[in-house]
C-alpha cells in the first residue's frame, strides 16, 4: 500500500500528460496556451479541497486534541498554498495570452490571491507561536479563514462585476477529448495532493516520536 498509491499517482500523472498534450483537441484561438487550463483549474479545485481538509482537521483538533489532526491540518494548508501558487502563476500566463494583460481584478483570480495571503498568514501565525499555542491558534485561524472563502468569492465577484473568466457551465460544454483530459488531470493532481499529504504527515509523526525520545533521555 505504501508504494501502490505513489505508483498509481505517477501512472495517472503520465496518463494525464499524454491526454493533455497528445489526445485533447487544440483550442481554435489559443492553441497550445489553452493547455494551461488543465492544470490551472485542477490546481484551483485541489487547493480548495486542501483548505477544506485544513478546516475539518482544525475542528477535529480543537474537539479531540489529536496531534495528528493538527499535523494533517497544517500539511494540507501547506499543500493548498502550493496549489494556490500554481493557480496564481498559470493565471497571469493565461491572462496575457487570452486577454492581453498579465493581471486583471477578475473574481476567481482575485479571490485566489486573497486566499493565498490568508493562508500565508496561517503559517506566519503558526511559526510565531510557541509549540503549546501554535496548534490551538492555527486551528482557530484555519476555521475562521475557511469561513471567509465563500464571502470573499462572492464579494470579489460583485466588486469586479465584469468577469473575464468563462462561466462555470463552459466546462460541461467542452469537447469530449478536452473534458476527459481535464478530469484525468484533476484526478492526477488530487492524487498528488493525497500522496504528498500522507508523506508529510508520516514524516511529522516520525519527527514527533524523535522529539519525544530526545525529551525522555
Amino acid at each position, binding site marked *: 500500500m505504501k508504494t501502490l498509491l505513489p505508483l498509481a499517482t505517477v501512472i495517472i500523472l503520465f496518463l494525464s500528460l499524454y491526454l493533455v498534450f497528445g489526445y485533447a483537441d487544440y483550442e481554435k484561438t489559443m492553441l497550445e496556451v489553452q493547455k494551461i487550463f488543465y492544470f490551472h483549474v485542477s490546481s484551483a479545485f485541489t487547493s480548495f479541497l486542501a483548505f477544506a481538509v485544513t478546516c475539518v482537521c482544525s475542528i477535529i483538533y*480543537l474537539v479531540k486534541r489529536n496531534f495528528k489532526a493538527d499535523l494533517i491540518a497544517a500539511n494540507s494548508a501547506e499543500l493548498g498554498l502550493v496549489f494556490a501558487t500554481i493557480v496564481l502563476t498559470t493565471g497571469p500566463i493565461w491572462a496575457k495570452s487570452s486577454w492581453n494583460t498579465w493581471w486583471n481584478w477578475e473574481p476567481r483570480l482575485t479571490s485566489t490571491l*486573497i486566499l493565498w*495571503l*490568508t493562508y*500565508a*498568514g*496561517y503559517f*506566519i*501565525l503558526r511559526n*510565531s*507561536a510557541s509549540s*503549546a*499555542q501554535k496548534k*490551538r*491558534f492555527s*486551528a*482557530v*485561524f484555519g*476555521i*475562521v*479563514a475557511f*469561513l*471567509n472563502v465563500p*464571502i*470573499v468569492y*462572492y*464579494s*470579489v465577484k*460583485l*466588486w469586479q462585476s465584469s468577469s473575464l473568466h468563462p462561466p462555470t457551465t463552459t466546462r460541461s460544454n467542452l469537447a469530449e477529448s478536452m473534458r476527459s483530459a481535464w478530469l484525468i488531470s484533476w484526478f492526477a493532481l488530487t492524487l498528488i495532493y493525497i500522496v504528498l499529504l500522507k508523506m508529510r504527515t508520516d514524516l511529522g509523526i516520525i519527527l514527533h516520536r524523535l522529539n519525544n525520545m530526545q525529551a525522555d533521555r
Partner: protein
Amino acid sequence: MSASPNYISQATWLVRKDLSLHFRSKNLLAQVFVFSLLVVLVFNFAFGPAPLSPNNQGRLASSILWMAFAFVGTITLNRSVEIDRTHGGLEAIRLTGIDAGLIYLAKVVSSVIWLTGVQLIITPLALLFSEALDQVSGLAVLRLIAVLSLGTVGFCSVGVTLSTMSGRFGSESLLTVILFPLIFPVIMAGARCTTFILTTNTFGNRFWLTLLVTYGLVFLSSSYLLFEFVIEG
C-alpha cells in the same frame, strides 16, 4: 448562554473596564487621532491636487476613510490586547469564572464603541480634506453612520479574536498580516456603500449592505464559539 441579569452586569462591567482603560490613556487618544489624520493627509498628498468630478471625489473620500479605519482599528485592537497582556488582566478575569464568550462579546462591544467614536471625529475631517463635505446631506450622514457601524462590527468580530492571538507574542505587525486578508470583504462592502452614499445618497446595491450584516453575524457567532480556545491555558 442565558441573558441572566448576572450575565448582563458582567458584560457591562467588562465593557466599562475596557472603555475606561482606553479613555484613561491620553497617549492612545492622541496617537489614534493624529495617526488617522496623517493617513487622510498622506493619501490626499499621494493622490495630488488634481481636480476631480463629484463622483471621483466621493470614491477618493470613501477609500481614504476605510484605509484610515483599517489602520486605526489595528492600532486600537493591538493596544486593547496589550493592556490585558502586560498586567495579566485577562488571566485575572478568567479566574473570576466569567465565560470566555462573554469576554469576547464585551471586547467587541467596547472596541466598536471606541472605533465609532474615532470615526465620528475622523469622517468629517476626511470628507473636508477630500472636498466631499458639501455632497453630504443630513440623511446621508445617518446612512454613513449605519454603514460605518456595520463595518466596524465586522472588523471587530474577527479583529478581537486575531488580536488576542497575536497579542500573546507581543508582535504588532503580526496582526496586520493575519487580519487584513480576512477583512477584505468588509473593506470592499464598506467602501462601496460609502461611495454610493457620497455620490448618489443611497446605499447602492443591496448586496453590499447584506454582505456587511452577514459577515458580522458569521464571524461574531464563530468567534464567540472559538474564543474559549484562544484564551485557554
